[in-house]
């Protein structure tokens, strides 16, 4: 649980393969409230993943500042676009590795895995699992850490709709049980409205905030198609916006 204040003065995508360098971000500002679930919505290739990488501290090539409300170096979990599991370690080891050693961690890892319905897969190597299960392991790894900030980069992409929906429900349940600040990147407005309590629509380049929509839906409302569609209309620019 931490608020995040993002100030990116400039981030340039380096020139590669004959293409010239292009500015991705210029004077970009975004505040994430503590324990909020913010979805970043925008077309692919805009630089959303780059933003997550800058927040996660794996991309230092920018000028600006990322600060956290409860002190520097919060516990960050990152669910990448691909599961990024270690194929030579078992499911349980993959979930355990980011945790401090000890019996407490083992208990927590086992607990999260069983919440995910992966109790039987603990000793299996990831490549023997389906993509949906691998994504669940990646989610389990993120949750077992009990992160203060959870970054998610289209974590349900390339899954069939039924599987993706099951994982979305699971994510909502887990966040309810263990509240945390979430920044969720997607290009699927349905998904954004269904999960987030704030949807930030991005445009560009350079990236700027096009719309900033608060999603005030109950848990039941999020499961009702009509309600989701109504908010989705706002997100897509058909209705009044909360903050411009």
């Amino acid at each position, binding site marked *: 649980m931490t608020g995040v204040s993002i100030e990116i003065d400039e981030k340039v995508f380096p020139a590669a393969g004959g293409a010239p360098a292009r500015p991705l971000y210029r004077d970009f500002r975004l505040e994430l409230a503590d324990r909020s679930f913010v979805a970043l919505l925008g077309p692919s290739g805009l630089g959303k993943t780059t933003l997550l990488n800058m927040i996660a*501290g*794996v991309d230092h090539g920018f000028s600006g500042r990322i600060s956290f409300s409860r002190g520097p170096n919060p516990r960050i979990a*990152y669910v990448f676009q691909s599961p990024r599991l*270690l194929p030579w*370690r078992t499911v349980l080891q993959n979930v355990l590795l*980011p945790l401090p050693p000890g019996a407490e961690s083992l208990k927590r890892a086992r607990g999260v895995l069983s919440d995910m319905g992966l109790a039987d897969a603990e000793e299996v190597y990831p490549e023997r699992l389906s993509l949906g299960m691998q994504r669940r392991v990646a989610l389990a790894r993120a949750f077992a*850490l009990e992160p203060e900030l959870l970054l998610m980069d289209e974590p349900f992409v390339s899954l069939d709709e039924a599987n993706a929906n099951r994982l979305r429900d699971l994510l909502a349940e887990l966040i309810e049980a263990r509240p945390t600040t979430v920044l969720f990147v997607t290009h699927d407005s349905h998904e954004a409205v269904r999960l987030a309590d704030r949807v930030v629509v991005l445009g560009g380049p350079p990236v700027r905030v096009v719309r900033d929509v608060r999603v005030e839906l109950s848990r039941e409302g999020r499961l009702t198609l009509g309600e989701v569609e109504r908010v989705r209309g706002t997100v897509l620019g058909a209705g009044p916006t909360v903050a411009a």
Partner: protein
Amino acid sequence: MAVAGRLGWWALSLATFVAIWWVVALLRQDFRLLPTPDLVLAALIAAAKTGALLTNLLITMARVAASFFIAMVLGSALGILLGMSRTADRLIGPWVVLFLNLPALVIIILCYVWFGLIESAAVAAVAINKIPNVAVTLREGAAALSRDLAEMAAVYRFGRWKTLRHVILPQLSPYFAAAARSGLALVWKIVLVVELLGRPNGVGFELQTAFQLFDVATILAYALAFGLIVQAIELGIIQPWERLANRWRR
């Protein structure tokens, strides 16, 4: 079952080789130049009885082990450095190619000339011959390291030791295996030349003596003993280790 099957094929393959050898030797009928397998076995037993075989094999093995170990450690370190740093690769890469193509004999002679006919010069000469091979193999491995997994390890704060043990080394293990296997074969061959040129003992020295006496049976006997040891290392150490390292693959 799998082990029995593997050993079965191995035995069949070797038996075929011995059978062909026997037939050719009988056809040639010149047992001084090409002795039959049973004559070689007799020479092997004779050499074993005097104790010379075991002593010389152990001495050679020790040299192989020392130079192999040194070459693997230094070669891996160098290769990983070259694979991870482009500057280092640009700066030192050409040296590696130079040493890779320098004839083994040149390195051996220079080591003996510069450092004398001593044990450390012999071991160093073998190691220097092998280091570029290891470095080139490991450079490929290090250059192919996954950035995705490195980022994952950084975000999840694995730290240096955990990253090395769980993220980097498993990715490099096929390259280590390849370097070890090709390297062992190379070291075996070069150690004998080094012994032949400047050591008073070891298999290479014995082979030289046998060569001067035109004793082909003893030469083949040593080669046979040597071959058996190499096969044992391949079957007993390298292959099981590879299987262990690859058990996660589907």
